[in-house]
Structures are given as C-alpha cells and as structure tokens.
C-alpha cells in the first residue's frame, strides 16, 4: 500500500479536490486503500503516446477539458458514417455518456477546467455507435476502427440487464474481436475494456452478458468509497478487477466532464470503472509499449488486491490468488501496474485445450443438483495445445429447460476451487434454455489444468412448474486457456536484449590452429582427396584435398566440398577458415566480412558486421537476421519498419505509428495522409470546417463552437485561461448587450426593461405594496434570477 504524498501533486482544475478516488489512500482520507494513481504519476507515467477510444454515443471533442488530448485519428462516427464523433445534442441530453467516459480517461490536467483524467496525457477519441440502431454490423465496425493506431477500446454498455436477457456479440463482432486480438497493435493485440454487466436494474447475472464473458475483454466491476458492494453490482465469474465508483447517496461520487462543456458528478455504475481501468492500462502501456493483450490481463491479475473490499465470497484459489465473484482479483493498483510493466517478460504463448464434449444427456430434477465430470490431461499429449497453467476457463452448455431462471451452475476445478458460473434469475421465465452459451471464469487463474472438472447444475423452481417437464443437460464442453509453462518463470527474452552470444553446437566448435602435415596410405581414397592420396578411406584420411580442408589436428582434419557454417573458403590455401565471431557466413576473417549472422545476432549492412543491437533507424529482422532500415518517418522502430518507437523530425508518435505534426493552421487529413489547411478563422483545428476549430486565429474570439471576429449580440468578450484568444461569454439572460465583466447589461431583449443594470420582465404587478416591495428589496430578491419576476420592475421603478 504505497503511501503517495498528495501534497506533491496539485492541479488547478476546479474539481481536483473532489477527486477523492485519486487522492484516496492518504491518512486523512475516508477511503482506506487507494488505486495508487498519484504514485504512478509521480513515477512519470501519464499515458503519453498511448491512444484510447470510447465506444459510446459520441464525444464532445471541443470540450475545454478534452480538446487538448482529442485525437481525430482515434475517432469515427459509425451512426453517421463520417469522421466526426460529436454527439447529437437534444433537449433530453440523451448522448452525454461517451463524453463523461472520455473525461475519466484523458481530461487534460492543470488547465482550470473540470477534472484530471487518469491518463491525462493520452490521446483520446470516440466512436459514436450507440446513437442509432445497434446491430452486429455496427458493433463489428466500431471494434475494427484503426486497430494499428488505437491501443485501447473502452466500452461501458451491453445487453439489457433486465434479468431475463441472454445476449452477446454476434457473428461479425466475434470475428472483429478475434481480428483485433490477433492483428491489432501490429500483432500485440488490441486491448478491450468492458464495464461489467449492470444497467441500473437488479436480479441479473452478468454471465448472461456475452461481452464481459469473452476472454478477449477485460471486465471491470465497481466498489463504493467505503469498499461496499454498490446496489447495482452483479456477481460474475468473469470479472477481472475493480475500481471505485458511485455508491449510496451518502458516499462520494466520481466527477467527470459533461456534455455542453460542463462538469458533473452524475456519472455512475460500472460505466465509471471501465474508463478508469482504460486509463490505468494506458499508464502501463506507456511504461512498456510491447505488452501484449494477455500480458495486460496477467498484470491486472498480479497487481489487483482485495484490500478492504467487503465480499463474503473471497477465496484463495490453488495458485494462491484471492478472487471474488463481485470484485475479481480486487482493487486495481496503478503504481504496481507500471512498476511491473517496466520489467515485465512476455508470457508464454496462449494454448487452447478443448475437451471432447460430454454428450451424455442427463435430466435435471427440480430441487436437486446434477453433477457431470470431465477428466483432462490438459492436452499434455499435444505440445501445441498443452495447458499446464490456467488463464480463462470456458464452459459451453446446451441445456433444455422449462424455466431458465431457476438454474444455478457451478464449476469445480481439480484443485477444488469452486466458481459460480450462473446464479438464479427470478425474472427469467424463458423456456429457451441455453443454446451453446459460453460461460467464462477467471477464478482458476494460475491453477493446474489437469485432473477432473465437475459441472454442478442446480434447479430450484421459484414458481410452480409442471413436474413432468424436466430440464435436460444435453451437452457441455470444457475449454481451457493457458500456458504450457509457468508464466511466472522467465520465458522469453523478447523484451530483454541481454541475450548472450549463443554457445555454438559441438559440431561447430573449431580451435584456431594450423593444419598438421599429412601421413602415407595406399588403398583407394575418398573422392574429395587430392592428388597426394590418403591414409584411409574417409575424407579425414586425405593427404590433400580437391576442394577445401577443414578442422585441425585436435578436432580432426577433413576434406570438404564446401566449408561449414562459420567458415569461409580460402581459395588460395584451399582451407576453411573461421569467420569473425558471430558470423555465420563470411568472405573473410575480419569483422567487416560477414554475409550472415548466427542466431541472436543481426547483420549490420552498413559495415557487414554481426551485432546484437541494431543502430538507430534500423530494426532487427528475426527472419533475415539482418538490421533493416525503419520507415522514413521513424527514427527508431522495433520488429518491423513501421512499428515506431520514436519519430523523425516533423512527425509525432501515436501508438507505434508516426503521424505528421501539422503546423498551426493545418490538420492531418486522413484520406490524403497530408496536412490540409484549417478554416481561416482557426489557429488549430480538427478539420476544414469553421466549426472544427480547436483554437482561434489571431483576431478571432471563440463563441460557442466557432471562431468569430466579434461577439454576437448577447455576448461579451473576456479572457480565457489556457487559450491564446479571448472568448465570447454569454451576457445574463434576456440581455442583448452587456459590458465586461458581463454583469452590467446595457440593453435588454424585447419585453424586458433595464432596471439597476439587470433586465426585468416588463410586467408590473399589483401587489407591490409597501410591505411587499420592502421585502423584495431588503432580501435583494431582484438580484437573484429566480425571483426576478417578483414585481421587481414595479418595486424598483418606484424607488
């Protein structure tokens, strides 16, 4: 429990002091254990160069607290089929959700606006896809936006939580998930963060939400300031970790940006938690850009901890990990995440062991429990499928049942750990049963896979049912995901470049020495023997060689037609001579004569030498064992020419891509991949339109979402912190023109008259007797907008 010193970091953002969940953890705070976000910042991680996007109903890209970090390359409008994710504004404020989520991730720091995001230097974008018919196609499109550019996708939505829905990603969306995992982030795997299944109703179980039950999504739940279970939280075996969120009316809330350039503490539920974890993962990615999607999940499992979170089902699994259905592995720890990330070694490859389905059809008797077992070796006989250490476990079931909500399903591992895959759902009276529905649990993380797994199904009717109609377990399949080796043991040196030169195999070892003189021999010689004959039938009996001689007296001299690896053919002396150390093929003895290198070394084409670290502008190509030049926009790259870790002048890094730094007055045009001019009224912008300014050009002022030469009637000009231009602020209500600082109206709208510099409705009243007017004036009601209609005009006009 790292004790950060909050006094060290203080931002001037107005809601900074309300952000208890960031400053939590110090002695004076009511919440006992923090998420250690401050500590992570103090280590210098703020999400730089990491790209996060919010899949929701849009994002207000020119919100003063989002504009600075807004990235239009991480945005798209699937509902409108264009590149502008701005939400649709309406009187009921339906589309506030995305902007609220975005602020939690990357609201700018110290800009005197609203709050500070968890990764306040990350790129933030939005994919507008909830404000219209959401279909499988819409979801698949949303999850497939620029996977090589966007690192983290955060989603705080899902199927209805009415306690009777069973729904999840459709065919296309499942493919989009798999595509993102396999190819996203140039092979490292896109990161999908999902709010665990609540929606403001009770009586549901989030294993019926197919998004949080996917092994590809990181499902996050919530706890309140006091570590209690929020009223809305659903238990779930697939929940990985937890963050603070809103709770009871007397517990403090989460503050974030709101639509219409505002601030709010009305963002609640697990909608809060997913973006918080997205921000924390951004800090970890900044610490180590090479983390794969599974590395991130392992990091969360390793660093999250139960602290004071109250749950009656905390248990320790056989790998020694504490886990609960409410909170997964516990409260996230940002500092631990970034510390682990800096020294993290990629976990071994994921193996999938899918057992043959158990197809014996079994009746489920009401009021009883049915047990069905599968024994597995963890596919140890198949090296490529062998799962020795578990990550996710999936159970796919085919159950016929008259009333699905009466079912409870548990899975017990060979080590005896019990995970509840489904709880009863009082509102679910569906007779559809479960048709190949996949339940997922993370409770067996790190346990050994082999042994007997038991599926336990309980049926306890909550209403009168026809006793003759029984439920039936038709089939179930056990699918184990994990690694064959222990992921906590060092596996790959992929991250560490400290590989030593490999010790050559015995047949390659040659000691540098001059060849001995030859002996006499009369019987037939080997064809490689030269004209001086031989003293035996083999090539090592030759007195001289037709082509080349190789080896030495100590290891044995032999004649060869071609020299072995690590040697070059010395034509003059007809001898195989050793290359410089590290060279596999060469044309001479010196370091600059290499043609190819041994495993672990790479050919530097600049000087034909073998090195273990390529020079700047080059990357080590594993296949060719050669240093190849990075893409011309990259100054440094890894694994391929376009996986950049540093950019050339004029480009800036986003993820592992270098995009042009457009100068002021221009923006990066996606289609043309060049910088295009902004509207003349903009200093910086996100697009060519006059409503796409971020900052206004000289001589212009920002009014609402535009840059105007002069303020319109009803506005007055004033300074704005953090921007190089003035703003047009709205005069008070009903005022047509006012003078600075906006409280002194000089002209009113029609129907109002100016009285003591405010606009009073032109109504006069007939109850303005002495007493009433005295009350109005003594209480200064006319100074309060709400009370101005209280005969102010009459009372004030009459002195």
């Amino acid at each position: 429990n790292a004790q950060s010193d909050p006094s060290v970091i203080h931002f001037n953002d107005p809601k900074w002091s309300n952000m208890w969940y960031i400053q939590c953890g110090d002695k004076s705070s009511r919440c006992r254990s923090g998420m250690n976000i401050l500590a992570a910042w103090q280590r210098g991680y703020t999400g730089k160069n990491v790209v996060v996007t919010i899949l929701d109903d849009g994002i207000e890209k020119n919100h003063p607290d989002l504009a600075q970090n807004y990235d239009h390359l991480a945005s798209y409008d699937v509902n409108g089929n264009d590149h502008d994710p701005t939400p649709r504004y309406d009187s009921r404020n339906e589309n506030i959700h995305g902007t609220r989520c975005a602020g939690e991730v990357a609201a700018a720091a110290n800009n005197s606006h609203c709050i500070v995001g968890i990764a306040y230097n990350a790129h933030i974008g939005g994919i507008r896809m909830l404000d219209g018919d959401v279909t499988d196609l819409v979801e698949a499109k949303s999850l497939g936006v620029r996977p090589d550019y966007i690192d983290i996708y955060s989603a705080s939505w899902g199927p209805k939580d009415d306690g009777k829905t069973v729904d999840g990603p459709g065919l296309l969306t499942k493919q989009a998930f798999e595509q993102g995992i396999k190819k996203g982030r140039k092979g490292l795997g896109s990161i999908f963060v999902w709010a665990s299944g609540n929606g403001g109703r009770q009586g549901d179980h989030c294993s019926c939400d197919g998004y949080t039950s996917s092994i590809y999504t990181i499902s996050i739940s919530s706890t309140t300031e006091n570590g209690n279970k929020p009223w809305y939280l659903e238990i779930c075996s697939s929940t990985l970790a937890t963050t603070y969120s809103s709770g009871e009316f007397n517990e403090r809330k989460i503050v974030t940006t709101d639509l219409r350039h505002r601030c709010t503490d009305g963002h609640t539920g697990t909608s809060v938690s997913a973006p918080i974890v997205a921000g924390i993962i951004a800090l970890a990615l900044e610490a180590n850009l090479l983390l794969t999607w599974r590395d991130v999940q392992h990091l969360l499992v390793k660093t999250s901890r139960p602290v004071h979170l109250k749950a009656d089902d905390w248990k320790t699994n056989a790998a020694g990990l504490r886990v609960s259905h409410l909170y997964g592995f516990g409260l996230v720890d940002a500092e631990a995440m970034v510390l682990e990330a800096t020294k993290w070694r990629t976990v071994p490859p994921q193996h999938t062991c899918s057992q043959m389905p158990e197809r014996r059809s079994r009746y489920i008797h009401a009021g009883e429990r049915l047990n069905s077992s599968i024994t597995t070796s963890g596919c140890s006989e198949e090296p490529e499928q062998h799962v020795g250490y578990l990550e996710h476990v999936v159970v796919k079931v085919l159950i016929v049942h008259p009333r699905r909500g009466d079912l409870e399903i548990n899975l017990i591992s060979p080590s005896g750990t019990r995970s509840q895959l489904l709880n009863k759902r009082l509102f679910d009276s569906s007779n559809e049963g479960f048709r190949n529905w996949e339940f997922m649990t993370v409770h067996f993380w790190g346990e050994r896979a082999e042994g007997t797994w038991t599926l336990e199904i309980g049926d306890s009717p909550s209403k009168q049912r026809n006793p003759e109609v029984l439920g039936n377990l038709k089939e179930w399949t056990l699918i184990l995901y994990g690694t064959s080796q222990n992921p906590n043991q060092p596996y790959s040196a992929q991250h560490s470049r400290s590989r030593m030169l490999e010790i050559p195999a015995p047949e390659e070892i040659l000691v540098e020495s001059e060849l001995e003189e030859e002996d006499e021999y009369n019987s037939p010689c080997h064809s490689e023997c030269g004209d001086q004959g031989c003293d035996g039938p083999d090539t090592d009996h030759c007195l001289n060689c037709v082509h080349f001689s190789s080896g030495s007296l100590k290891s044995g001299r032999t004649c060869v037609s071609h020299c072995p690896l690590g040697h070059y053919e010395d034509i003059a002396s007809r001898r195989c001579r050793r290359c410089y150390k590290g060279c596999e093929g060469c044309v001479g003895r010196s370091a600059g004569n290499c043609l190819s290198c041994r495993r672990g070394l790479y050919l530097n084409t600049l000087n034909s030498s073998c090195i273990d670290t390529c020079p700047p502008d080059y990357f080590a190509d594993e296949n060719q064992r050669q240093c190849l030049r990075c893409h011309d926009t990259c100054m440094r790259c890894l694994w391929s020419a376009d996986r950049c870790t540093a950019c050339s002048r004029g480009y800036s890094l986003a993820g592992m891509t270098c995009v042009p730094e457009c100068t002021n007055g221009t923006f990066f045009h996606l289609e043309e991949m060049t910088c295009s001019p902004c509207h003349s009224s903009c200093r910086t912008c996100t697009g060519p339109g006059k409503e796409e300014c971020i900052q206004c050009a000289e001589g212009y002022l920002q009014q609402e979402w535009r840059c105007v030469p002069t303020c319109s009637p009803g506005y007055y000009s004033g300074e704005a912190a953090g921007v190089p231009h003035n703003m047009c602020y709205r005069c008070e209500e009903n005022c047509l023109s006012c003078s600075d600082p906006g409280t002194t109206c000089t002209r009113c709208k029609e129907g109002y008259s100016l009285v003591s510099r405010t606009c009073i409705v032109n109504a006069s009243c007939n109850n303005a007797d002495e007493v009433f007017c005295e009350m109005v004036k003594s209480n200064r009601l006319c100074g309060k907008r709400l009370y101005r209609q209280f005969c102010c005009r009459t009372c004030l006009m009459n002195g």
Partner: protein
Amino acid sequence: VVSGHVYTNHWAVRITGGQEQADRIAAKYGYINFGQIGSLEDHYHFHHSRVVRRAAYSLKGPHSFIHMDPEVDWAQQQVVKPRVKR
C-alpha cells in the same frame, strides 16, 4: 422471424473477389455497398433503401435473392440489438 426482433435495411455479406465484385453484386439486387466492415476481409456492409428501415419481421422481395446468389458466401440481415449504458 424471431419474436421481438427489429429487422433493419442493412445487410452484412461475405463475398470473395474484392470491392468491385461486391459492388457488382450489390447493384444487381438494388443494394448500395457501404464498404468493408472494419478489418474483416471480404465482409461488406450493404444497404437497401427500398426496404423499410425497421420492421417486426424480415420483409421478402427481389432483394432477398441475394441470399441465394452463388457468389455470396454468406448474408445476414441486421437486427437491432438492444443495448444499455452501464
């Protein structure tokens, strides 16, 4: 028809042979090809403006023949999936 479903006038189709091939087949049945679906190769988003935007059941018509076209590996009329914010 599945009760409670809302059918839209958008389709997801899988057609090998590239964008032009997809455009040709779209035009053949009166659809407009909105392009590839994200990074899903050979999967395209088709829209049919003459099919009602939302319906309680899947309307049949000349556009339905796309399901039987030998050059179309797979076609799915899109259904509205109710989604709630968490």
